Every structure is written in C-alpha cells, then in structure tokens.
C-alpha cells in the first residue's frame, strides 16, 4: 500500500499502552452497544435501521427541497440561515458577525464539521478566542491534537497525559485523578461560558418541518453553549437534514445506543430560533450555517451518495479490526475508521490517499453495525476500482495487469499449469522471503500445501 503512513502505523502497533487503550475503549463501546439493542429490549432494532436508511435516502435524494423547507422554517422562527461553500466562507461570516457585535470569546461544543474546516485556527489569527468545551475536545485543544475517535476524541490519552497537559497549559498542580481533572476543567470552562459572546455548536440533525437544530450530548456543554451566550451559531453539513420532528423517533432511538449504548444520551436539545418574548434566558440571535465543503460532489454517484447518510455514531470504528489496530491518528483526515476510509477519498479525491480504500479486509463488520445501513464495503470496492482506473490512466499498475493476464492464461492452460504447480509447491516455503511478497507474508501465515494435489486425487478416483 504505497503512500500509507507505515511508520506511524508501526509505532501504534508497537505501543502496548496505546494498543490496550484502543482495544479496551472500543471493546467497552462494543459491549455497551450490544447490551442496549438486545432483542428483548429493542425488538424493532432492525426495522429502525431499515427505516433510518430509507428516510435518509429519500431526504438526500431530494436534498434541495428539504434544505429550502428547513431554511424557510428557521426564518419563520426569527433565525437566519447562511449557506457556505467552504471553510473560508464560514470564517468570513463568523468573523464579520463577531466584529459587528464586538465579540471576543467564543465557546464551542463538539462538532466534527468544525474540525473539518480548522475553525479554531482560522479565528485565532484574528484575535478571537474559540474554546472547546467538551472535556475530551478541551484536552485535545490544549494538547494541539486532533480527535482520535468520532465520539471519544481523547481515547488515546491516559490520566497522566491529561495531568501533563493541564499542568503545562493551565498552570495547575499535577492532578492525576480523572474526577478532579474534570473539576478543574469544569471550573475553567464555567467561567468561559458565562463570559462568552458567541456559542458555536454542531448539529446532529436539522429538522426541516420545524426549522430546528437538534444537538445530542452527555456533558451539558452543548446546552450551555447554546443557552448562555447572546448569540448561537450552529454549523452543520448540508446532509444533516431530516424531514420531520417525528422522524427523531427513528434516529434518536438508534444514535445513543449505537454510539455509547445509551437509550438516550443525557441531553437532547431541540432548538428553533432565538429566545421568544416570554423566555427569561436563551440567545438573542440564532444562526444556522449550512456547509457544503465538498458534500455536493459526493451526491453525484447514486451508490456512493449513501456515504452522506452517516449520523456519526462511531460504531463502525469500534467494530473495525483495522481501526482497533492502527487507531485514529493514522488516518489522513479527522474522519477515521471505515467511515473515514470512504468519506476522505471522496472529499479529497481518490488519488490523494490511494492506499486508503485498500486498508480494509472487507470483513463487513462496519456495515453490520451501521445504524443507517451504509454499505461501507460496497463503497470501498467502488473507490478501489476508481483508484485502479486512475492508476491505469496514469500508465501505472502495468506489472499488476500483466501478472493477472499471465495468471489467467496459465489457469486456462492445464498442460502448462500442472508442471508449474508442482514446482511452485516446492518453492512455497521460501516464497515469503522473495522481494515484495515478504511484507505481505510477514503479517500472515501461509497455508501448508496438501500432500496430494486435487488433480492427482481426481485422476486416481477416475481409475477406480
């Protein structure tokens, strides 16, 4: 797999502490999920998945309609919708608004979409402080790292790592108890919440018939982000829209269970517009940024389009034998695991990371656990085909094509094949030591050849 970050992968595989952290964290999430979808607890689980898939297909196939409906309902509740094509347009809008309102401090709740556009870095250049408030994201922001996992961003860090980050960045005494570390973060961030001018959240769902943004979380930081500051901005990919509030019965019943095994996450906020006349609190201004950032390119192919159905539960990461070995930071972009392997090449172009669609055994675990039934292996195969086609357009892959043509010819000519096979059998044990095969064989055990070939066995049978 030319181009793969082999050094980084090797380092992850050789780090026993990191291997244990990834393995036990994903293992725990796997068992929590399994416990929450047991047939006696949720007999309709498979039906919900089918429904979730069909609803997403319908919505994405008519995306323009539902985005316009969403927009007009946000406006009807005194909110504003801003369509942004890319990161720069998001930054321009937020910076412009911050300048107009004399804002200095932004609090942020966890959002993969804002990770996608390097939101914090873009604002920092303009003396606008943006603080992550999800505990894991806050630790990563202080440590200048990107998330390791879609729902458990600091999965790779130990309490000792956290202690070091806190002492270095916050100047506090060394504290290694997670409970006390959480208290430290709570105190620092509480002050930020109360002082912030703008709160930026992501969105798990955009509800078209209500003009509402739905945010799901466990800590309460997204509630604070959307309630305490006088301006709330939700930044969401255009694919987050669902038709009706009642469709949440499908998605909320799947999301928490698939992500962490919770029937419902602790806080589900259904937000539509700024505070109303009689409200004592809540934001004065409410904006929804609808971000393209390459998503419209993913719409073109009707089969690969389903990559946009993802509700970011992280179940495919937890169940993936590749993710569980190589972890999150060896993937080229913020989206890791199987979903990252199909999304990243489509956003960046397949030839940016030609190795990525091949970094899978196609075992299918991801598709089996996906709550919206994205056929990830099918999309991986399509991407592999695209990589191979692109390579042959570039005149590459000639040796491989030649080898397969030879193989096909040999297999259809038994007179040649049979003597070659018996010679090959003798060479099999030394084969792994030969050139490029060595790498492949180093991770695998080759089967021992049978003492008697099938041809011989068959011929002997015919005689009797």
């Amino acid at each position, binding site marked *: 797999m030319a181009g793969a970050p082999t050094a980084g992968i090797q380092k992850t595989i050789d780090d026993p502490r990191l291997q244990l952290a990834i393995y036990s964290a994903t293992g725990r999430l796997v068992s929590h999920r399994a416990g929450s979808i047991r047939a006696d607890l949720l007999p309709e689980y498979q039906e919900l998945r089918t429904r979730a898939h069909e609803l997403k297909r319908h919505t994405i196939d008519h995306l323009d309609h539902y985005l316009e409906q969403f927009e007009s309902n946000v406006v009807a509740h005194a909110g504003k919708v801003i369509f942004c094509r890319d990161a720069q347009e998001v930054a321009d809008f937020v910076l412009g608004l911050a300048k107009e309102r004399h804002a200095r401090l932004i609090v942020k709740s966890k959002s993969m979409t804002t990770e996608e556009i390097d939101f914090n870095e873009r604002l920092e250049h303009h003396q606008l402080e943006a603080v992550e408030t999800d505990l894991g994201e806050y630790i990563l922001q202080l440590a200048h790292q990107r998330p390791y996992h879609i729902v458990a961003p600091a999965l790779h860090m130990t309490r000792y790592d956290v202690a070091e980050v806190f002492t270095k960045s916050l100047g506090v005494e060394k504290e290694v108890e997670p409970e006390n570390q959480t208290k430290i973060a709570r105190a620092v961030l509480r002050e930020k919440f109360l002082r912030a001018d703008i709160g930026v959240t992501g969105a798990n769902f955009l509800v078209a018939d209500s003009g*509402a943004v739905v945010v799901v979380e466990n800590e309460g930081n997204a509630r604070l982000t959307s309630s305490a500051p006088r301006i709330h901005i939700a930044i969401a990919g255009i694919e987050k829209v669902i038709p009706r509030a*009642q469709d949440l019965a499908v998605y909320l019943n799947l999301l928490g269970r698939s992500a962490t095994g919770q029937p419902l996450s602790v806080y589900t906020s259904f937000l539509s517009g700024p505070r109303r006349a009689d409200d004592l609190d809540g934001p004065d201004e409410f904006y929804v940024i609808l971000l393209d950032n390459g998503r419209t390119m993913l719409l073109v192919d009707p089969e690969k389009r389903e990559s946009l159905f993802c509700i970011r539960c992280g179940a495919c990461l937890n169940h993936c034998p590749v993710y569980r070995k190589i972890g999150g930071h060896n993937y080229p972009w913020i989206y890791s695991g199987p979903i990252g392997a199909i999304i990243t090449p489509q956003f960046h172009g397949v030839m940016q990371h030609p190795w990525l669609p091949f970094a899978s055994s196609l075992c299918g675990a991801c598709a089996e656990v996906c709550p919206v039934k994205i056929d990830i292996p099918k999309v991986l195969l399509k991407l592999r085909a695209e990589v191979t086609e692109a390579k042959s357009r570039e005149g590459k892959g000639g040796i491989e094509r030649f080898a397969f043509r030879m193989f096909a010819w040999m297999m259809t000519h038994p007179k040649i094949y049979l003597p070659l096979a018996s010679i090959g059998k003798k060479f099999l044990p030394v084969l792994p030591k030969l050139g490029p095969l060595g790498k492949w064989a180093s991770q695998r055990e080759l089967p021992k050849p049978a003492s008697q070939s099938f041809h011989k066995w068959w011929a002997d049978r015919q005689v009797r």
Partner: protein
Amino acid sequence: MTSREQILTSIRSALGRTAGQSVPPLPQPVLRVPYSDHKALVDTFVQSLEKLAGKAIVVRAAADVVPALAKILEGKRLVASNASYLENCGIRALPNLQTGFTDPAAWREACATADIGITSVDYALASTGTFVMLASQQEARLESLLPPVHIAVFPRSRIVANLDALLGLLPLPAEQTSSMVLITGPSRTADIEQILIRGVHGPGEVYAVIVEEN
C-alpha cells in the same frame, strides 16, 4: 450567484432535479407507544432514572413535597423556575429560595450561584427516565443547567411511556417553544480513560419528585 444559489444548483445538477420540483410523499412516521397504566408508568420511570444514578421520590400529595425535600434543601441556596406547579407544592414559599425573576441578568446570576435548581417538567419519559422541558414563561433553561443539583417536581400525569409518545403528543415542538430539552439523568462524561464521571458541566445530581395526586 450567491453561495446559496451555487450550492442549491450543484445539488440539483448532481441529483438531476430542477428548482421547485415536487417530492414524492413520505410514509407516515411509525411511533411505538406501549400501553401502560399510571402506576406502571411511575414504576418504570423510577427504575429508569435510578439506573442512571438519578434519585426518585414518590409522594402522595402536593403538600408532601416540601417535607420530603426538607433535608436536601436545608441551608442551601435555591433557585426555582416560574412553573405554576411549584407554587401548588409550596416550593415558591421556601425561605431560602430565589424565584419570580423577570430580569435576565439577575436570573443568570442567581442560577450561576445557586446550589440547587428546582423546576417542574412538561413531560417525563418512563422508558428512559427523561425530563422534557419546553422553554417558556414557566420554565427557563439555566436553572436546570448551572446549579450542581437539579430537582424536578411534577404530578404523575405528566409521565408518558417513551420518546415516541412525546413526539406523538408534540409533532411540531417548534410551534410552542424555541427550546425543548430532554434531560436523561445527571450530566456525565467518560472522556478520560472511559471512566464515568458525573456532573461535568450540568448537574451531577438529579432528583425527581413525583406527586401521585393531581
């Protein structure tokens, strides 16, 4: 062309659609609401909340609420929403309570410094132990969020079976409120070594006081 038009145009050309083209009707949503009587709903709610380390107290009548909470409330700085049900229960008359706010700044300050926030709920979901609150003149947002302890007091008639039942009753929540929140147990995180810690940003302790008589 604005970004809006550009994005909508690329979507339409990718999907082979034209502006304003109609959309085939969606099948009706399926909502699954099991039948249960009031007593079963209360039992299920209590079990669900306790599973999340929330605490539930069931009392007979509104007059029993304050005595049942006396120990928890003693000597604490309290803030309460303007829910009329709290008035019925005598909560609003507690001496250490701040309530009846109309000024947003004073309200925020009170919530930020209170030990306990007291609210009612608009609905409660039995199967998950969830409080449902719609922001209004009666309920705000910060009193169930800033104090380290949240107590919700409500009659058992507000308990419905599950999320599906709620969405059946409120097909369009945005028509009634700018903010509907579902609160399912204490605030929690497992971001450091997957160790469960309660009370990260929201309340670490959550109580439900369920009144059996309406």
